[in-house]
């Protein structure tokens, strides 16, 4: 055979495998609003940047007549490429090949590209679209899942791991995305659950649709399992590209800096906050009035909305922002918002992203449901995450900072490097009403007009304690600043912290209140 003939043979082989599960199966995939697996990769990555590996891998199962079945690329496409010039490792399960089912070789292709990404220090993107374990392969398909979870864990905090759910992802398979940093879902396409509607019906007699059990909306609004919601696969890919622009390739690098851009003029920081601490506003308007180009990339927008997290840029540098949201539940900390913030803080700390905390909260949410849901254990996560973080930590107290909420929101006491307060800040053990009712209980009860006495005492307390000056007098706050100077103070703080180093005692790892 001449080289030319050998090449023709190669092309024929490639073409055969690249048709995946065949034209009919691909047509079915497309009819569901889903792109074929290889097209998903080429759409997401920079044009012509995708290099595929292990195209000719075959499964080795001989049971149940599997030896007579050829599965193109064993149902998963793996390789490397780039997004806006950033190199990435990627895999995409091909639902047209045996339902994207995971057998041992399918899993080994995935673990190989995972190992490769860890070694090269590049982000890994996994596109999930699979019916689950390949039952014919028995315990070997379970082995495959386990080997993936193991690597997800080893890669955690070393390289960014992004999971994209573009089809079913059920049973044990859900635990790979759950172990990764960011999960993207698409409306009506993504389905994630441990046990599906069929099992729930037979075992428990309860009926529910796949969409209501584990659709994209459920995971972005109720469970918090997903971080980004999109209406279409195209929109989802745009979100991934944007995320990648904010994060570094690995934990030894810093995120790319871009040319600095001022905030847009329609976000004026001085006009956002009502002076009455009991009136709400949208904290995202404050963020947009501070960050470059007023461009705030919010994460987990629809879940635990009483806290807002996301990435932005200050003077061109990526920062992670955590802010209480007075517009939802008065911005309190509770079980879900603590979980949400704590995980994000740890992400930023692992990947060298400075943390900016914007504080305006009345404290923790009271309630039997919260106590019984373990708000002690969950609330502790935010204390742990902030205290543990060694990236630059900059806190701005906008208005209320009461009680345990004040401590938890990256106070000086948890190791904040810079604490600024606006003149509107109220740093106190609790709100004036609650404090006056306790401290002046006897006076109020004994007064001729208890309501008038209460009003007076509340006013007295407000004037004396509802301000930032007592905290400033104790050095808990570094500077009381004009709100319009906030951006300038933050940029300066980040510049000063460029070479921050903090050495901690050796330990294998801490024991956070998981």
């Amino acid at each position, binding site marked *: 055979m001449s080289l030319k003939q050998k090449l023709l043979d190669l092309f024929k082989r490639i073409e055969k495998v690249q048709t995946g599960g065949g034209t009919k199966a691909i047509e079915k995939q497309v009819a569901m609003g889903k792109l074929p697996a290889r097209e998903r990769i080429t759409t997401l990555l920079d044009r012509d940047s995708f290099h595929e590996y292990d195209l000719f891998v075959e499964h080795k199962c001989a049971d149940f007549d599997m030896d007579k079945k050829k599965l193109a690329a064993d149902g998963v496409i793996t390789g490397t490429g780039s997004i806006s010039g950033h190199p990435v490792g990627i895999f995409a399960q091909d639902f047209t090949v045996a339902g994207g089912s995971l057998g041992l070789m399918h899993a080994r292709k995935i673990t190989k590209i995972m190992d490769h990404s860890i070694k090269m220090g590049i982000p890994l993107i996994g596109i999930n679209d699979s019916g689950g374990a390949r039952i014919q392969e028995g315990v070997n398909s379970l082995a495959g899942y386990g080997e993936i979870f193991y690597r997800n864990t080893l890669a955690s905090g070393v390289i960014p791991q992004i999971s994209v759910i573009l089809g079913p992802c059920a049973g044990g398979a859900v635990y790979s995305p759950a172990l990764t940093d960011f999960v993207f879902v698409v409306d009506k396409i993504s389905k994630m659950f441990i046990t599906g509607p069929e099992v729930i019906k037979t*075992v*428990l*007699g*309860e009926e529910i649709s796949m969409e209501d059990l584990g659709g994209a909306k459920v995971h972005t*609004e*109720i469970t918090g399992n997903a971080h980004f919601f999109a209406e279409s696969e195209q929109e989802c890919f745009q979100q991934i590209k944007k995320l990648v622009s904010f994060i570094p390739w690995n934990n030894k690098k810093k995120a790319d800096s871009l040319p600095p851009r001022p905030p847009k003029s329609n976000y004026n920081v001085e006009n956002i906050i009502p002076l009455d601490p*009991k*009136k*709400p506003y949208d904290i995202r308007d404050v963020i947009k009035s501070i960050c470059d180009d007023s461009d705030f990339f919010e994460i987990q927008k629809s879940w635990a*909305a*009483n806290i807002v997290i996301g990435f932005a840029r200050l003077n061109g540098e990526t920062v992670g922002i955590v802010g209480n949201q*007075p*517009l*939802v*539940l*008065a*911005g*309190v900390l509770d079980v*879900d918002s603590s979980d949400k913030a704590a995980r994000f803080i740890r992400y930023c700390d692992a990947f060298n992203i400075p943390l900016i905390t914007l504080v305006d909260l*009345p*404290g923790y*949410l*009271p*309630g*039997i*449901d919260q106590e*019984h849901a373990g708000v002690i254990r969950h609330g502790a996560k935010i204390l742990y995450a902030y205290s543990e973080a060694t990236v630059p930590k900059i806190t701005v107290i906008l208005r209320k900072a*009461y*009680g345990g909420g004040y401590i938890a929101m990256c106070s000086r006491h948890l190791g904040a490097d810079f604490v600024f307060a606006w003149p509107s800040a109220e740093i106190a053990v*609790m*709100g*004036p*009403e*609650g*404090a006056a*009712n306790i401290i002046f209980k006897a006076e109020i009860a004994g007064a001729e007009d208890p309501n008038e006495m209460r009003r007076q005492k509340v006013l007295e307390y407000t004037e004396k304690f509802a301000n930032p000056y007592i905290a400033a007098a104790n050095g808990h706050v570094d500077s009381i600043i004009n709100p319009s100077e906030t951006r300038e103070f933050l940029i300066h703080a980040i510049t000063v912290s460029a070479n921050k180093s903090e050495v901690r005692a050796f330990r294998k790892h801490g024991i956070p209140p998981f």
Partner: protein
Amino acid sequence: MSNNNLKSIVIDDSVYETGLTKKYLNRKTYKPVDQKRVNAFIPGLIQKVFVKVGDKVKAGDKLLILEAMKMQNIVNAPLAGIIRVVPKEGILVKKNELLVDIE
């Protein structure tokens, strides 16, 4: 969230104007456990009933077998008393459905 969705929430005697979440609005009100009412802890099948109405039971006596998740769960009496209500064998029960009432 538009401003006409604003409600209020009380924290440490202060009333804050704010939006409320679905989860907050749907939170369950707490009910203390009534030991006399034995409810299904899991949805399942009443496979066998060992007691009938009027029986005297001691704490720990077997009441019934609730089959769920391929497991035959034995449900015992939490306290001593006289049986007032029992389920029929072979029926499916929902979670938290009343199985046995002890007086």
